[in-house]
């Protein structure tokens, strides 16, 4: 599904290397968690994969089902099946949430050579999916993320994910700013999309999200590299001992 090979990335504006050789392979239907201290390059990895401006790839590659992601426009990556749930979803005044969702769904269908969904078909699907995420009609009508609470914004991200049916979902600190109930709701939304084929990369600081979204593999990232990978027990280890031991271990190695 996703193959990241020796990815080196620096900021365009300043000469600062953020990623220093990231290697990651996510197979079909797998859930991978990436944990790590602040500034280790977790969010940068997600932005570079989604195609945000401001980063320069100096070495390495990233493939989604064999397609070279780094040569594609952000919208082409989306149409190829990549979805990034933002840590800070963007507010767009003047664009209704419903219009936004429909434009996105139909743009992707068009890019893949499929017929656009009619207004009625779309409405039926969106209502159904919104209901399971406890997103009411009012939230669908309001401008995208404007005046939404932290929890509403994150639920709105998951709704987009559910509507767009991507092959690979990257969740960038989706648990940040969520209370326990909202985290449960969001996790249920994510788990509902696990169908054995769709893959997930879950970026988080805390183990508690991984209680809800069970990962197959946990990676620890530090200073622009993945320094350790393991099973779900690795997340528990971090929760108990912090990153200090792992980082010390890394330095010795």
């Amino acid at each position, binding site marked *: 599904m996703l193959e990241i090979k020796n990815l080196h990335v620096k900021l365009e504006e300043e000469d600062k290397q953020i990623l220093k050789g990231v290697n990651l392979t996510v197979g079909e239907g797998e859930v991978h968690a990436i944990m790590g201290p602040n500034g280790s390059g977790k969010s940068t990895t997600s932005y570079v994969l989604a195609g945000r401006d401001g980063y320069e790839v100096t070495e390495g590659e990233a493939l989604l089902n064999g397609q070279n992601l780094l040569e594609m426009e*952000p*919208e082409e990556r*989306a149409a190829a099946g990549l979805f990034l749930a*933002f840590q800070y979803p963007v507010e*767009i005044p003047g664009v209704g949430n419903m219009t*936004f969702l429909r*434009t*996105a769904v139909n743009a992707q269908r068009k890019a893949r050579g499929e017929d656009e969904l009619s207004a009625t078909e779309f409405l039926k699907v969106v209502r159904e999916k919104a209901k399971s995420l406890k997103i009411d009609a009012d939230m669908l009508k309001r401008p995208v993320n404007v005046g939404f609470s932290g929890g509403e914004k994150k639920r709105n991200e998951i709704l*987009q994910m559910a509507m767009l049916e991507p092959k690979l979902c990257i969740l960038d600190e989706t648990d940040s700013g969520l209370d326990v109930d909202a985290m449960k709701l969001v996790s249920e939304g994510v788990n509902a999309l696990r169908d054995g084929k769709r893959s997930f990369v879950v970026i988080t600081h805390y183990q508690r999200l991984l209680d809800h979204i069970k990962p197959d593999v946990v990676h620890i990232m530090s200073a622009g590299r993945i320094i350790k990978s393991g099973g779900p027990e690795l997340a528990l280890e971090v929760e108990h001992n912090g990153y200090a031991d792992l980082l010390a271990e890394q330095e010795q190695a």
Partner: protein
Amino acid sequence: MTRAEMKQRKLDATSERVLGMVMPQGAPWANDLRQDALNRLLSMGLPQGRDEYWRWTKPDSLTAETPTQAAVFHSDDTPIFTALDRLKLVFVDGVFDAAASDALEGENLEVMRLTDALSSDIHWIKDAYGALEKRAQDPVDRPLATLNTAFATDGIVIRATGPVSRPVSLIYLHKDESSDAILHHVIKLDAGAELTLLENGPAAARFNKVMEIEVADGARFHHVRAQGRDHERRAVTHLFASVGSDAAFKSFTMTANGVLTRNEVFIDIVGDDSVAHVAGAAMGDGDFLHDDTVFITHAGLRCESRQVFKKVLRNGAKGVFQGKILVKQAAQKTDGYQISQGLLLDDDSQFLAKPELEIYADDVACSHGSTVGAINEDALFYLQSRGVPHAEATDLLTLAFLAEAIDEIEDEAISADILDRLEGWLARRRG
């Protein structure tokens, strides 16, 4: 040169300029009103580039003796508002075309050609013609409107005596490359009346239009205007309104391209508990200029006014906004809002704004803001990351930028028509 000498020079130039102009003749009272306007014009002088009120919009081509030629704009598109059930009144190069127009009648409606009205003995028109224009000369001179009152050759006079269900639609057609049109409309809404007025179409090579609107107590006036894509348009328009108590005045203008378009709006809210909204959405792509100059005076209690102006500019287009809210001492509990924003799609365009508040009452809420900026990069990336292509995402954000102005249109069918034109304008540019 002293100020007095400069003023004298301006007045001399003005009298020389208007000397050869023919004043249309009507009933004696009408001739008197026109002569009064001419005298006022001769004492204030035509606008010049160094006038403060004209510092961003050069008036030369509007005051020149002969109009600059303007190519007739051809488009295969169906004109806007075509699908609406409306009373159509057609002007070709500034001349009323009775054959192309509907009969001058309607439910709760009196409609008359201006030239007929000014030759007759209709009491209310005697009091109305040029009256609001004259009142609006204080505190800022609006000489092109005074010129219009003196020399207008045609126009329409409308009186709504109750709710008018069909909109009245003024359709302007431009057929002569050197036409110079001066139109003057007088509109009166009696107490409790309701009227929607639509305007669209290129009017002439050069167009000077005045519209005076009196909105009596409890009356509601809606105005939606589309200034089309005719690239070589030079137009100056004035909208003068007096708003009574418990009344509503709402005006929206869409402006696309055009070499020079200056839209002045002057609203006097004289009654209590009334609302006055003026909004505009402008798009310029090329060497075009749109100027919205708005002046709203609050004299009554608990009135609300809104000025919402949005301009999308690229390829050297220039947007101008001069907007003022004047709250008189007696106008307590006034709620005033003013926003003017420019969206620059490239580095070559300009948005110039002069927002002004002048408040003498102590218990009022007035907010105003003016911004200029580019497309929000974060929002653009967010849309792209959801699969929306760059060009489409840019258009979506451009329409979102204009949305606050378009939201000011109450009628959904009219609003949809306007939105459709805006989308068309953007789509043509996407290629």
